[in-house]
């Protein structure tokens, strides 16, 4: 098979991949190539036809598609080689990729690879939503791509399942083409978003049903209704011609699972160290591939920081032999990033770890190693909120045993 070379190969041309590539060029790194499987780069924002994108990173408020275009322009202007219609089909040790394009396949040997494949919503099947299998059951992402990129309307009166932030995007996307959501069905007893966003669905006039269970989709060819059981055990049916399955994001990590790289069960993404390196240090990872799920703006900043580490690693290798795991030892803590702590004095390490909870929790968030408390602080939080905690107290020179996180 044909072989090609580049310096930094970036898999995925969404927010993170483009921001990272542009920053690398700004830092004087040459041979920066973005591999994007879609016909256009830009990632998820390409099909988020709503505000607000870009406020912090571009200092203006744009709709998703304009934001995506701007990121592509910036990358091109900085001299990034963006290759679209280019799918990475396998990851190999030491920064080597199998690549497929409509013209044919090649192997790409880089000095560093950066994985920026993003997240997607979990599907109906993954949530075990029962019933028949008619057409017209879509995730928000699929709906957005149909509406904003292909100008097609899959249904007119959908039911939305899930009330994470993205369900509001689903409502706005529906409105864009005159679809009228009939209801939002939520398993919990409240909306799964930050406080200030809670009134939103009510403002749009879409009723929310809480404490729903046993959701079933009815209809043979196309959706006819959605059935569910309410908190009192009463059965209901809502007439509808479509279903939007929203939220429950998962990193797009199919390539990872099939590769030599370690995957973290908590995030579903790669297991990385405090420099953003995967278990093979020729691979860096950033953006929403790291975990579900942050905003574009967050991913942009994260990617820019990661670029700094890569530039640094090329100039003076970060090194760091061996690692100790950083992990959750508490079912209330859903995941933590990073998952590996290496001993290295290289500058630019992450200063904070990111955590998410599996349920509302109040208590002392504590990091323990070998029975000793390394750090602790009071915390009261909820699953939809990002939690940041300092990494520095954990990076003791004599650290040898795994660091476990608990809420005490």
């Amino acid at each position: 098979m044909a072989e090609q070379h580049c310096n930094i190969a970036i898999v995925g041309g969404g927010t993170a991949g483009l921001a990272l590539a542009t920053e690398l060029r700004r830092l004087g790194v040459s041979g920066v190539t973005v591999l994007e499987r879609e016909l256009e780069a830009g990632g998820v924002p390409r099909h988020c036809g709503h505000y607000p994108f870009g406020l912090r990173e571009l200092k203006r408020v744009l709709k998703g598609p304009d934001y995506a275009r701007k990121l592509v322009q910036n990358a091109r202007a900085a001299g990034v080689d963006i290759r679209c219609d280019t799918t990475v089909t396998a990851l190999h040790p030491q920064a080597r990729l199998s690549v497929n394009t409509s013209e044919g396949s090649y192997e790409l040997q880089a000095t560093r690879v950066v994985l920026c494949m993003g997240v997607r919503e979990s599907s109906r099947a993954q949530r075990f939503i029962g019933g028949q299998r008619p057409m017209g059951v879509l995730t928000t992402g699929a709906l957005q791509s149909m509406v904003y990129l292909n100008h097609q309307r899959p249904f007119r009166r959908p039911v939305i399942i899930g009330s994470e932030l993205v369900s509001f995007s689903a409502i706005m996307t529906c409105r864009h083409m005159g679809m009228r959501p009939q209801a939002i069905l939520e398993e919990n007893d409240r909306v799964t978003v930050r406080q200030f966003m809670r009134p939103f669905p009510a403002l749009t006039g879409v009723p929310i049903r809480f404490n729903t269970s046993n959701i079933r989709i009815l209809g043979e060819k196309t959706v006819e209704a959605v059935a569910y059981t309410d908190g009192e055990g009463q059965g209901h049916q809502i007439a509808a011609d479509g279903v939007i399955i929203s939220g429950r994001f998962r990193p797009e990590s199919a390539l990872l699972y099939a590769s030599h790289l370690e995957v973290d069960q908590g995030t579903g993404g790669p297991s990385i160290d405090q420099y953003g390196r995967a278990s093979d240090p020729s691979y860096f990872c950033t953006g929403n591939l790291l975990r579900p799920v942050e905003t574009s703006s967050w991913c942009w900043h994260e990617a820019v920081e990661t670029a700094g580490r890569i530039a640094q690693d090329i100039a003076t290798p970060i090194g760091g032999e061996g690692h100790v795991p950083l992990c959750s030892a508490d079912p209330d803590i859903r995941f933590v990033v990073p998952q590996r702590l290496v001993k290295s004095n290289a500058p630019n390490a992450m200063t904070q770890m990111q955590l998410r909870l599996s349920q509302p929790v109040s208590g002392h968030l504590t990091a323990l190693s070998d029975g000793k408390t390394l750090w602790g602080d009071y915390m009261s939080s909820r699953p939809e909120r990002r939690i940041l905690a300092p990494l520095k107290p954990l990076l003791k020179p004599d650290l040898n045993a795994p660091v476990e996180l608990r809420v005490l």
Partner: protein
Amino acid sequence: MPDTSDANEPFDVAIIGAGVVGCAMARRFTIDGARVVVLEKAAEVLDGASKANSAILHTGFDAPPGSLEQKCIADGYAEYLEIRESLGLPLLKCGAMVLAWDDEQVVQLDGLVAKAHKNGVMDVALRSRAEILTQEPQLSSAVMGGFVVPSEYVIDPWASAHAYILQALANGAELRRNCEVLSGVFDRVWRLETAQGAVRAKQVINCAGLYGDVIDERLLGRRDFSIMPRKGQFVVFDKPASELVEAVILPVPTKTTKGVVIFRTIFGNIAVGPTAEEQESRTDASTDAEALKALRDKGIEMLPALADYEVTTVYAGLRPATEFQDYQITNHAEQGYITVGGIRSTGLSAALGIARHVSRLNAGVEFSGAPIATPICPAPDRLSNYHPRDWESPDHGGIICHCELVTKREILAALDGPMAPTTLQGLKRRTRVCMGRCQGFYCTGPLATLTEGRLDPALGERDG
């Protein structure tokens, strides 16, 4: 191509139903020299029982010795291996293991091995617990014993049946979809009333699967069996999980079911199922969360590492079971009518053998053409994960479905080729588009554009 508008020239054979059995039947009779028409109620072939199964090519090791089912499975199995290369059909030579998980099941192993040998499957052999765990180290150590069935294989349940009917079509048969058979009268030839007008044929073969009894009732005015649909649900895990196990993992069967199986699919996944649930409806293949969770748990119990893998999809199929154990194949020779019914849980394996059996039953009947010595072999759908795929050869026009790596060239080939799908379901079965882990998250948009004006119902509509 035979001229079908000529009402004076009846078909030699009208086959009712294009499930895997009808497809194999169409191929057999076309090769035998008959002018064949296949009448299918649905918009696509394989829309009934054949829509969803475990895709295991059974040896018939556990079929009742001396039964028609056992004979058809053995013949079907042999013929599949014979023709599969010429038709470009894949085979996953994985073998199977029947495992006992408690003392009660252990006791049955000897008898099952003896039965397999009686059925001519001579390579079936007992294995100790240690041998089993050496061969399949990821299995739960709770396993107590079992035996191997080295020649149970996995195939592509759709590409195979599609290849049979496509071969029939390429060699002169005709397929009418959306063509439900409503009634018929026999007066030396059959005149069938269908949703698309009358069709005349010298012989009728009822391959209506889940509606086998209904068709007998409509055309013969009586039924010799009643279909009792038995649903089977499945949970399919992500592709990387397929590394966990090589062989098909079968339990010791009970009277009514083969039990919950763990098997790799030819598409590179690993699946757990089916359930066995009796029901009235012949169409409702609903899944339900409880059963799916139980299946996932059962899978994890047998193969603990499955717990670390994501579910890709779930599905359910309906077996056309009857009150009888064996297939219900009857030649009503005086009425030019053959019933092929109750092909409940082994029809994929047995289809080619069933077709041969029916062809033999029919030996005395003359057809308008001569047997075809070297039938045309049309290009197959190449969907196996274990064989070269379309995306691996250049100029594929771009990848539309990223999870299953389905190319634009493949989709257009299906949409422009013979027996073009007219529904998303049909297109999925021909190309695997939308069948991967994202279940349409990425490909729905581009697919809606690519298929515009070609599918009914359409994926979407435009304004204005």
